[in-house]
C-alpha cells in the first residue's frame, strides 16, 4: 500500500526547510506582483506582507540575492532576476491552477479558494502540476479571471479594465475579480458577482459605485470597485436574461418560463449536469409542487420531474411567458 498523499503533504510541512521555502517563494511572488504593476518593493513591504520582522525580511532578501534570484541596486529598488522571475511565475501558475481546480472540481466556496490554493502551492511537485493542468484541460484563466502563466512562461493578457473607466449606462461583463484585499473581494462576492456575470453601470459616485446585476440594483464601495474589472459587450440573450434576474426560483407553482441560461457561478461538473438534465436554453419549465418544508421544488423539464434546491433554482435564468418583463431596466 502506497503512502497516502495527504500524509506526504503533512510530512512535507513538518520537514525543516519547508517554512523557509514558503517564505522565499512568497517573497518572490510579491516581487513579481509589484513588478508587473510597475512598482518596486522595499524591505518594509516584504516584512509586512510575509508577516515577519524587518530583520528576518532582510535575511530572506539577502539569501535570495545570494541565490541569484534577485538583485538590489538601491535599498528600495529590489528587482527579481530572470531566474527569480521564473520561480515566481511557477508559483503564480501553481496557485492559479489550484484555484481553478478548487472552483471547478470541489464544492469549496469562492472565499476559500485563495487560502486553500495558498496552502497547496508550496507543496506541489512538477508531476502534480502537470497532472492538474492536464486534468483541467490547460485553462488560461483562473476563476477570478487572472491569467495563468503557461509552462513556457508566457502570460495571457488580463482582460477588461477597472469599472470606473466604464461609462454609466453601458452593459458590461465582469472579467476579473481581484481577490486581494480580502474585504473588498468578500464584498463583491456578497453581491453575487463573479467572472462572466453581466452588469449595467448606473453611476460612479464619490464613495460608491452603483450598478445593476441579476435584477437588482447594488451599491459597492469605491474601494471594492477597485477589485472589479469589466469588459464592454453586446449582451447575448442569456446574458440579457441574467441582467433581468428572473430565475426558476422566482416562478410560482404552476407558472412556466423558458430557460435562457445558467449563471457562470455554476461551474464544472455541476454545470454540465444541469445541462444534461435539460436545463438548456429553450427548455420550457414549470414548477409543479414543493417539498413539505418548502424546498426543494419539483420542476417539470422536458417531460420529467426534477427536484432542485432553492439556491440552484436561483442560478437558472428564465424568460417568463410574457416575453420578459424588463423590470430591472430603469
Amino acid at each position, binding site marked *: 500500500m502506497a503512502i497516502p498523499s495527504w500524509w506526504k503533504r503533512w510530512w512535507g510541512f513538518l520537514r525543516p526547510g519547508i517554512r523557509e521555502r514558503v517564505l522565499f517563494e512568497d517573497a518572490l511572488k510579491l516581487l513579481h506582483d509589484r513588478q508587473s504593476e510597475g512598482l518596486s518593493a522595499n524591505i518594509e513591504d516584504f516584512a509586512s506582507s510575509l508577516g515577519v520582522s524587518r530583520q528576518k525580511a532582510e535575511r530572506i532578501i539577502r539569501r535570495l540575492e545570494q541565490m541569484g534570484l534577485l538583485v538590489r541596486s538601491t535599498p528600495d529598488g529590489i528587482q527579481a532576476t530572470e531566474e527569480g522571475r521564473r520561480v515566481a511565475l511557477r508559483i503564480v501558475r501553481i496557485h492559479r491552477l489550484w484555484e481553478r481546480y478548487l472552483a471547478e472540481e470541489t*464544492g469549496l466556496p469562492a472565499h476559500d479558494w485563495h487560502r486553500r490554493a495558498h496552502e497547496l502551492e508550496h507543496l506541489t511537485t512538477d508531476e502534480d502540476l502537470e497532472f492538474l493542468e492536464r486534468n483541467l484541460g490547460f485553462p488560461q484563466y483562473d476563476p477570478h479571471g487572472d491569467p495563468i502563466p503557461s509552462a513556457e512562461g508566457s502570460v495571457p493578457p488580463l482582460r477588461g479594465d477597472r469599472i470606473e473607466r466604464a461609462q454609466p449606462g453601458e452593459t458590461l461583463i465582469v472579467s476579473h475579480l481581484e481577490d486581494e484585499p480580502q474585504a473588498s473581494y468578500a464584498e463583491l462576492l456578497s453581491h453575487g458577482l463573479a467572472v462572466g456575470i453581466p452588469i449595467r453601470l448606473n453611476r460612479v459616485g464619490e464613495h460608491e459605485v452603483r450598478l445593476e446585476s441579476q435584477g437588482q440594483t447594488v451599491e459597492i464601495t469605491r474601494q471594492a470597485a477597485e477589485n472589479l474589472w469589466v469588459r464592454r459587450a453586446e449582451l447575448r440573450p442569456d446574458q440579457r436574461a441574467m441582467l433581468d434576474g428572473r430565475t426558476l426560483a422566482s416562478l410560482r407553482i404552476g407558472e412556466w418560463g423558458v430557460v435562457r441560461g445558467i449563471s457562470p457561478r455554476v461551474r464544472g461538473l455541476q454545470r454540465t449536469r444541469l445541462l444534461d438534465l435539460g436545463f438548456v436554453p429553450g427548455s420550457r419549465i414549470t414548477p409543479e409542487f414543493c417539498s413539505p418544508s418548502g424546498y426543494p421544488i419539483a420542476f417539470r423539464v422536458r417531460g420529467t420531474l426534477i427536484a432542485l434546491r432553492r439556491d440552484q433554482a436561483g442560478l437558472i435564468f428564465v424568460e417568463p411567458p410574457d416575453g420578459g418583463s424588463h423590470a430591472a431596466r430603469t
Partner: protein
Amino acid sequence: MNTSTCGTCPQSRAARVTRLGIDMQGCQYVVALAGNPNTGKSTVFNALTGLHQHTGNWPGKTVARAEGAFAYQDRRFKLVDLPGTYSLMATSIDEEVARDFLLFGQPDVTVIVVDASRLERNLNLVLQVLEITDQAVLCLNLMDEARRRGIEVDTDTLAADLGIPVVPTAARFGKGIPELIRTVHDVATGAIACHPNRVGGQTPGLQRAVQTISHRLKEVFPHLSNADWVSLRLLDGDSRVAEAVRRAEFRETRDGGTLPSTTALPETSSPHEAPISKPPRHQLEAILEEANKLRWEVGLDFHEVLVEGVYAEAARIASRAVHARRQASAEDWDRRLDRILTSRVLGYPIMVGLFLLVIWLTVQGANYPSALLSTLLVDHIYPFLRNAAESVGVPPWIRGPIIDGGYLAMAWVVSVMFPPMAIFFPLFTLLEDFGYLPRVAFNLDRLFRWAGAHGKQALTMTMGFGCNAAGVVACRVIDSPRERLLAIITNNFSLCNGRWPTQVLLATIFLGAIAPAYLAGTVATLGVISVALLGVFITFLVSWSLSRTVLRGEVSTFHLELPPYRPPRLLQTLYTSLIDRTLIVLWRAVVFAFPAGIVIWLVSNIHIGNHSLAEHVIRALDPLGIAVGLNGVILLAYIIAIPANEIVIPTVLMLTVLMTPMPGVGAEAGVLFEPEDMATTTSILTQGGWTTLTAACLMLFSLLHNPCSTTIYTIYKETGSWKWTTLSVLLPVALGFLVCFLVASGARAILPSL
C-alpha cells in the same frame, strides 16, 4: 466470423433464444445496454439473460456494470448492463462506468433503452451515443406505460430519422423481447446496416477545429471510426478522452481488425492491449497540444451551444415521431399522489408511518420462522452431527471448533438473520418499485441540506436499514465527492438487519419486563424504534459536524429525478428478493460466522494457567466495560463479532455462562447455544450481573459501534482511502463509548444501585 466453438452444441442450431445466465464462454459478440437511468435497462437485461439483476424505480439503482449472456441462431452474445447516464459528457462515478465502456470497450452492438413516454429527453443521450458508434438498436421500452399515458410513437419515422432500427418493447412483461433479440442479431451480423444520424449544428469555427484535429488523429489511428467525436471531446477539454489518446488506448476494431472483437473485454481503468504498433508519444502529445490551443480559439461556451444543439435536434425528432392523443389520466393520478405524499400536512406523517409499519412487520413477522429454523438447525441437526462425528471417531479438538464452534454460529446466523431479512427486503423492494424512495429524499432534503449533506443520502440511508454494505455502494449516486464521503461514513448509523435481532431480544427481555405485561410488546417495539430513530438523528448530527470540520465545503448542487409511480409486481418481487436474501445470508453464514464460531470455541477452550483465554480477556476488559454501562463479556463479544454483527448475542450468552457457570444451563465451554426459552436467557443474563442499564447500553452500543467487516471492506473499496476507512470505523466506536458512558453515569447518578 468464427462459430466453431458454438456449432457443436445442440441447442444453438435452433433459431431460438437460449438464456445463458452468467455463462459467457465463447461469445462472439458484445452487446451493451445503455440508456438514461430508470428506463428499464436491467429489466431488459434480465429478460435476455434470465438473470436477476436488481431493478428499482429510482435513478441510480444500478451503479456497476453487470454481465450475462444469451444465444440465438448459432451465435453467442455477451450482454453488459450499464449504469444509467444522462449524457456522455458529465462524469459521476457510476456514469463513468457506462461512458468508459461505450467509448473504450467498443461493443459490437449498443442497445439504447429509452422510455417511450419521455422520448424527447431520452433522445439527448441517443444522439450522443450515435456520435460514437454506428452499430446501435433503439429499444423503445415502457410502451405499456406510454400507452397508458396516451402517447403514441411512430416507430418507422423514428427509425428513419435516427438511422437505426427501433424495437418497441415492454420488458417487464416480456413483450417485444424476441424482436429485440432478432434485431440485435441482425445488426451484429451485418444483416441490417445502420446509418446513424449525426447532429450538425456546429459553428463554422468549431467545424474547422474539429476537422483539423480529426485529420491528425486519423493519421495516427487510421481505423478510428469516431474521430470527429473524439476531436470534439478533446476540444471540450475532456481529460478522460485526452488520456486515452495519450496512451493510444483506442481499440481498433471491425474494419481495422487489429484485434478480434471477440476477445475478452478490456478493463476500463488500465491501458488495453496495445495496438500492433504504438504511435510515438510525441506525435500524440502534439495532437493534444493542438487541441488545447484550438479550444481557446473556438470560445468557451461552445459546450453549451453543443448541448443546446443536441436538445434541439432531439425535440425536432420527437415532435415528428410522438403523438400525444389526449391529456392522459395516468399523469393526473401521479400528480395527485405526489401532492399527497409530499404535502405539507401529510408528507411527514405518511413517511414515518410507513417506516414504522415496515419495522413492525419485520420484527413481529420474524418471530415464528426464526423459532422454526432454530429448532431445525440447533435442536435436530446439531445433535445429529455431534453424534455422527463421535461415532465415527473424530477427535474432540477437531469436533469442537468445527461443530460446536463453526456450525452453531452458522446455524444461529441463519435462524436469526434470515427471517427478518426475508421480510424487510421484499417490503423495501415494493416501496422501491412503486417509486416512493425518491419522494423520501425529496421530503427530507431540507434536513440533509441543513446538515451540509446531499439529499440523495436519504436513499442510501434507507438502503442502510437493510444492509450497510449495500448502502455504502449505493452512495455512488451522489456526485460530489465530499457529500458522498459524508453518506458513506454515516451509513453505519442506519440500524442494519444484522442488528435488529439484538435490539429485539434485549428490548423484549429488559424493556418489556419493566412495563405491565399487556404493554410489554408495545414498549419493546417502541424501544427498538427509538434506537433506530436515534440512529437517523445521529446521522444528521454527525453529517452536520463533519461538514463543519474535516469535510468542509459548500453544499453542492442537488438534483433528483422523481420517476413516475409504477405498480409494483408482488410475486416477482417476493420471489427475487427471497432467493437473493437466502443466498446472501447463507454466504455470510459460511464466510463470516463459521470462522468466528471457531474463534469463539478456541478462546474459551485454550487455557493459560487456570483460566481460559476468554476469561483473561474478559477480566481485563471488565473495568472499561462497566464504566460505560456494559461489561467485559460484551466488549469481547464485539471484538470477536467484528466479521458478523449478528453473532454478538449468542457470543455474549456463551461467554456469560462461561464466566458464571450455572448448573443445567448451556453446554460446554465455547459451545454456542440457544436457550430454550426467554426465561432461560433472562436468568443467564441476570445471573451474569445484567441490569436494565446493561441492556439499554448494549442497545445503544449495538447502534453505535464499528461497521461489520464486509462494510469496512466496502468502504475501503469505495473510498480507496485508509484515512476515511479508519475514520468510519473509529468514529462510531468513539461515539458509542461516549454515549454509553454518559447514559451509564447519568443513570447511576440517579439510581446509585446500578
